[in-house]
């Protein structure tokens, strides 16, 4: 696995950086952390588990993204990090 990024720091988006790690580790900075930090972390972990990623260090900088955006950015970052194209397979 190599370090990869998806997303931007625009309002309503989330920038997800994925790199090597042991187990699933998520560091989250979010403009809505107090109210949604727990949910956002859960979506990130569920998305990675759904892609079969078991070991990764995720850094996410969230600017109020909706769950659909979070899933899309995490998936794109994971595809870039693992080289496994989930859309084709």
């Amino acid at each position, binding site marked *: 696995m190599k370090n990869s990024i998806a997303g931007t720091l625009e309002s*309503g988006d989330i920038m997800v950086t994925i790199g090597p790690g042991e187990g699933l580790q998520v560091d989250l900075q979010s*403009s*809505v952390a107090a*109210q*949604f*930090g*727990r949910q956002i972390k859960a979506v990130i972990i569920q998305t990675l588990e759904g892609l079969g990623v078991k070991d990764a260090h995720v850094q996410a900088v969230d600017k*109020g993204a*909706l*769950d659909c955006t979070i899933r899309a950015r995490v998936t794109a970052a994971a595809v870039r990090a693992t080289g496994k194209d989930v859309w084709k397979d």
Partner: protein
Amino acid sequence: MRNSKVVTLEEAVKRSGLKDGMTISFHHHFRGGDKVVNLVVDKLAEMGFKNLKLAASSLSDVHKPLIEHIKNGVITGISTSGLRGELADAISHGLLNEPVIFRSHGGRGSAIADGELKIDVAFLGASACDELGNACGVPRSENAKSICGSLGYALPDARYAKHVVVITDDLVAYPNLPAGIRGADVESVVVVESVGDSSKISAGAIRDSKNPRDILLAKQAAKVVINSGYFQDGFSIQTGTGGASLAVVKYIREEMLNRGIKASFALGGITAHMVKLHEEGLIGRLIDVQSFDKVAAESIAKDPSHVEVSSVEYASGVHTGSATHALDIVILSALEVDTQFNVNVLVGSDGIIRGAIGGHQDTAADSALSIIVCPLLRGRIPCVVPKVTTLITPGKSVDVVVTEYGIAVNPARPEIAEKLKAAGLHLVDIKELAAKATAIIGTPDPLPFGDKVVGVVMNRDGSVLDKIYNVK
């Protein structure tokens, strides 16, 4: 000249008899460009004053130097319409021991007029002033350095404060008349390099939106206005400062031209949009408590049918002659609206103070038709919620809520719902809107509020509406 009141700031302060514990006041007509608050409070700190109470008509990002003055005990109490930026953040985290008292503009005006808010010394910035204290917010000489337009929020201070100091960056020859601030009310005049940066008047809350969602909201709101029954020749209107509520004016204008309808007056914060309609002959009078941009400020300087009013005349709830009592339609924005139609415009969904009551409470309460325009969500932050974080405008004052997912009409106004339905507008129950928001974003975790009261929200009649707690 004989009897000149011109002195240095230090001399003006000494002459005023200001003592520790007293209340000083300011207006915010220069908004983000204001220089008077920081200039005066720095001087008072230097002169050794402590425990002063600051009564501002509003405060914004530019006033973050107050944080140090609060830490040093120079300022120990604040009353204002709003707070923004780092100062707001620090206060939300418990910087001040006394809660900030939040009042609407009309509420502040009547609190001053009725003696509930007693001002010992008012320090009022003006773009032109003569040596006897006749002062205004528009240029009156070739040397003018600033312009802010209406001085509406400063007029109750000028009239009722025990001692009034005008601070100007252009001392002009007597008589500087007509002038909102009358020399007879003024004790001292102080000349400074600059009272404010006029280019920043329209910074902050006001922006002209190109956001397609704002445009959609504006079009929907315009349809509500046009089909409400109040859109008739001679109607009156006010808009707030949100992107969508400003854009509504554009669409209403088109329909006014189509139908040959003219408005008798526009009220409030006057914007370039309103000035344009007035100059086209579509709006008879502009009643201006605050000029929201340079175009409005320049208009009030030259146009006799664009008139300055005090915040009492604008929106007092207890003085029955105030202009809001004649207002038909108001279009306002919101941070949050709840399923009881209550509105919050002051405290963010993270619990941090980030706005101002402004004239929201006043115009919603007194107008014939109040329309709130807000998106269902801003990013992940819901704007239609089960219960507002902080109550600012009670639901009984709110008639229609316009979102991009439909229009909700307060059940107390069935006749409006009938008219809008007949016009083919998409009406929804406000509870459905809140449920829709929750379905998209999930249920937010509770905010990490502490148990220290950092703010008290007053209703315009002087009663307490809500309390704001510190954020941990």
